[in-house]
């Protein structure tokens, strides 16, 4: 692997979340030259991203302004010049992490040996290249059952698991010096407890109320004499003003007063950052600062929460959380469930110096759950619930999918018993399990899984026959067409099951995307690709079935032997080290 192009035209946070891939690529292929293709609006952050060799900046604004002025030649020339710049190198691999229609078309214009990500075929139809990229698109319909973080999906699509875990950004010495003098003029001493607050977020619904942040600050200052530092961009100045009006004490308001370089230094210097799910949360994580992510509305920590060992998430635990994408909620109860007292208690526990691995449930914690992040044995991030509660169907399937998706997508060998016992061990540690209830809970899903296998098997047999006929020197096309007729019907049946059983939707959706992405032109190869998709579907459905069926016995065996959470985490959670 000599040359790799990483495309990411998305936001700043997304760019930071690409850093594990860069790290992994450099570890696996030490001589690789990595080119980054980024959107100019968010390119500044690349100054702090290590492990890449070249950057190409795409000015989308320029394209928009040329179109607006009706200058199609100017628009063409600009895009062409960027393409020429990108194509000065022939790439062994391009990975498109942008997932947008423009990025898909752009990908088709770049020359490379192998492409992964959203692209278009030669006739312009969208195709998702690589099983884990197809999985990414499955996030939307199958979101509630997704166990993988965005960073990890990027890694899985890149087929690397780095040794150096987490996000990576560098901090400049110059800005550290600037910060030191700023702190000293503002009466913040080196041994003071500094807590950063990120009040803004990319949208209103993702923002924890400023008044709540202010109440939290009051208590932290009163009980810990903490120095509160507000971070944010110039667009967020209003939140800073509101905060200063609400808060009883003086804080260091740096909103709109730092460029990206200084912001990185500020977040690096904090002992803890309390933040909405937005860019600075990921920057803080990347510079090694412990973070507490307040996760509300459509934000789902499993996808975009802090990516690193020993960070914390407070997630609203109400039925509608997280909201479906694109929905406008008029009654954001989730924001009320996460009240300042709850956040204060979590911060207090983090700051206590004790290793926070367990929170005793009580009515105080009603409607919220607190998670702690850690890198699991598979090298991917995981979030351990700190309050032990009854196992829900959702959590059960998340745990199952965590084990089964790699088996299907990476073709990893596994036997259902090993997988089931791994899952059971974890569930017993993290949840209160009533196996009788669990059995009843999944009864219908088992029937549905069987149906999926039956439909897929029928289709597989038909396509097998078609494939056989297609290989003949003079295939009977009329017969092939006639035999094919039933296949779309069977696909619809499979899709219907996914629509009816939300737990199985990830399975059926990914199968559908797979079929849409079959690129071969000749009948033989098409049949062979389709057969492999049906085989995978059958394998996956059967694996889940076997796991579900073996769970009751495993629970039986484990009764009275449940280990505690520390054993499971194997002391892998680093202690919070900045507490004075």
């Amino acid at each position, binding site marked *: 692997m000599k040359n790799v192009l990483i495309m990411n035209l998305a936001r700043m946070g997304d760019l930071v979340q690409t850093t594990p891939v860069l790290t992994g690529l450099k570890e696996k292929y030490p001589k690789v030259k990595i080119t980054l293709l980024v959107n100019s609006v968010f390119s500044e952050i690349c100054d702090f991203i290590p492990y890449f060799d070249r950057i190409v900046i795409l000015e*989308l604004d320029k394209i928009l302004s040329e179109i607006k002025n009706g200058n199609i030649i100017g*628009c063409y020339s600009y895009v062409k010049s960027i393409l020429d710049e990108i194509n000065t190198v022939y790439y062994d691999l391009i990975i498109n992490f942008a997932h947008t229609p423009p990025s898909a*078309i752009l990908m088709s214009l770049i020359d490379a040996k192998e492409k992964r990500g959203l692209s278009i075929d030669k006739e*312009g139809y969208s195709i998702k290249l690589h099983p884990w990229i197809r999985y990414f698109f499955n996030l939307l319909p199958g979101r509630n059952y997704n166990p993988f973080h965005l960073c990890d999906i990027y890694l899985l699509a890149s087929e690397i698991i780095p040794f150096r875990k987490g996000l990576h950004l560098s901090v400049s010495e110059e800005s550290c010096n600037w910060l030191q003098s700023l702190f000293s003029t503002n009466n913040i001493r080196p041994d003071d407890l500094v807590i950063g607050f990120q009040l803004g977020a990319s949208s209103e619904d993702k923002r924890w109320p400023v008044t709540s942040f202010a109440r939290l600050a009051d208590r932290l200052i009163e009980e810990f004499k903490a120095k509160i530092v507000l971070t944010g961009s110039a667009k967020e100045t209003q939140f800073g003003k509101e905060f200063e009006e609400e808060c009883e004490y003086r804080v260091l308001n740096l909103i709109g007063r730092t460029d990206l370089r200084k912001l990185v230094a500020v977040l690096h210097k904090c002992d803890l950052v309390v933040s909405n799910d937005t860019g600075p949360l990921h920057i803080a994580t990347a510079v090694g600062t412990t973070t507490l992510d307040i996760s509300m509305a459509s934000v789902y920590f499993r996808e975009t929460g802090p990516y690193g060992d020993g960070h914390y998430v407070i997630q609203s635990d109400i039925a509608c959380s997280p909201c479906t994408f694109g929905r406008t909620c008029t009654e954001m109860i989730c924001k009320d469930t996460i009240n300042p007292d709850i956040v204060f208690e979590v911060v207090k526990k983090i700051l206590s110096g004790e290793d926070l691995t367990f929170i005793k449930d009580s009515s105080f914690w009603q409607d919220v759950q607190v998670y702690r992040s850690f890198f699991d044995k598979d090298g991917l991030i995981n979030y351990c619930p700190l309050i032990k509660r009854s196992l829900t169907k959702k959590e059960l399937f998340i745990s199952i999918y965590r084990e089964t998706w790699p088996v299907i997508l990476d073709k990893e060998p596994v036997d259902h018993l090993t997988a089931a016992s791994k899952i059971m061990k974890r569930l017993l540690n993290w949840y209160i399990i009533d196996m009788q209830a669990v059995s009843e809970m999944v009864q219908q899903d088992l029937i549905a899984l069987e149906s999926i296998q039956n439909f897929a098997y029928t289709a597989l047999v038909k396509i097998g026959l078609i494939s056989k006929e297609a290989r003949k020197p003079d295939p009977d096309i009329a017969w092939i067409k006639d035999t094919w007729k039933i296949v779309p019907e069977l696909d619809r049946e499979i899709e219907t099951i996914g629509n009816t059983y939300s737990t199985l939707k990830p399975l059926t959706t990914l199968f559908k995307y797979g079929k849409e992405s079959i690129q071969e032109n000749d009948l033989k190869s098409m049949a062979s690709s389709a057969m492999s998709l049906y085989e995978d579907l059958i394998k996956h459905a059967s694996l889940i079935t076997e796991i579900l069926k073996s769970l009751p016995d495993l629970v039986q065996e484990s009764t009275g032997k449940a280990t505690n959470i520390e054993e499971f985490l194997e002391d892998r959670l680093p202690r919070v080290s900045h507490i004075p």
Partner: protein
Amino acid sequence: MICKEADKIFSKNIETLRQWDSRLSQRVLSASEAGDIDLISSQSGAISLAIGNHTIHSKYDPIKEAKDWINFYLEKIEINDTFVIFGLGLGYHVIELARRKDAKIFVFEPRTDVLKTAFKCLDFSPYLGRITFITDKIVPFIKGKFAILKYKPSIKMYETYFLEIREKLEVLKRINSGLKIMVVGPIYGGSLPIARYCVSALENLGHRVEFVDNSIYEETFFHLKNVTKNREHVNYILHSFTDLLSEAFKARCCEFKPDFVLALAQAPINKGALSELRKYQVPTAMWFVEDFRLMTYWQELAPMYDYFFTIQKEPFFDKLESSGVKNFHYLPLAASTNFHKKLDLSAEDKENYASDVSFVGAGYYNRRKFFEGLTDLDFKIWGNEWDGATSLKKFIQRNGQRIDPEEIVKIFNATKVNINLHSSVHHEGVNPFGDFVNPRTFEIAACGAFQLVDYRSELPLLFELDKELVCFENLNDLRKKIFYYLKHEDEREDIARRAKDRILKEHTYEHRMEEMIDFLFERGLAFPGWNRGKDDIDNLLKKARPHKELWEFLSKYQDKVTELGLDDIIKDIQSGRGSLSRVEKIFLFANSVKDFYFPKIERSLE
């Protein structure tokens, strides 16, 4: 210097021209040659021309020069059948083109005396059937694609003239490559189907049409009409409703950005909307398919439209003129031949719809009275609003329910003698002063069906009476003709066939829409100033020169359109099939950037 046989050549040319364009031949004959025209002998021996200080043809070899000039154009032009040449001189290049291409040629030359001189020098007569000379600024409506060939020595001399002609030809090119036309229909009534036929005809002619179909509000309109018995209140409500629909129309207009708006009679567009469109220079046309005597709202609205089309001539024209309406034009109704056509009826249809005599239409006063005189015949009355016509009860089909347009076509086809009596609210039968011709006349004829129609003063302008169409003047006359034609099936069929042929030749909605656009062009149609994000195709090609791939891609549009924008390119790509080229992908990328990021940044109507 002039050739020896000048007089002979001139007579031959002028005689031939007279056969094709007698007015021009007259003008050429009477043109007096100005003193600046100087004929000189070139080195090759052929005559050359200088006007004042300008040399128009080569002094060495004007014939070779003409050949080179034609070669230059023919190499890069794909069009083969229609050419427009700017500048005549002595016409070496015109004759060379006519010799090489069996094409129509339009030659613009601002000076008739130059044409006269050319006629004395070269023999144009073998080609005059396909060469049109234009020496004024009236640009004929050239249909289809054409290529403009510029003879620079002439252009240099009369730049302003050629610029003006070029502008008009640009409009024509744009018309020929398809306009964006917004058609606005009424909420209900007789002009509604006509609006739909216009839409379909315009589309058939290659235009892009947005139909503002207000019939979706019919139910609401009638609910509002009956909301209270207080007429004053109802009037206010309906007025407000029309204002609302006017707003909706304006909004759609902003989005669609039409080249012009065609409103059918009764279209709910208020004066405010019309004056706003005028402000934005969006041309508006109304086809007033109503009787101006009965429907007098034209007095208020006609001056607000840029173009006004009528189905009546005098005295309506006089009245329009005195109301300050400038661009009005007579545009009779027509038939939609996709819809109104001869059918091969099933036995069941024949059983349901056949009769000796039938009438399809609403129960107007004159019809109720008149049809009592046909009650001894195998007579069927189809249509609605016949309530209270007790003496006709057994003839009224389906209790006077509204009949679908599809069924009407079947009735026309199944009836031996279709009666067509124009409506009147005053007369007992035939209106002796009736002028305009109703749609039914054209529709029955288009079906190849036979009709007897009450005499209208405009009928002889549209059909040859007795040969293509038979009229009646009163009940006795009608009865006599019914009996005659029921007995003479062959005659009936011959007349119907001829009427149908006439329709196909002259009276389809496609003909009308063409005539309408022709009139708009003649009256100096200018396009609105929407920011269309488009650029002139020649300009684009010039700018695209450094990019070979792009230039080749854009070249294919050269003879098809005058201007081109990203939207046009995308539409074209999306309608295509097969593998995408690199250039196509680049444009698709730019367009997807616009769609994906533009809404987040800024989107404005213009």
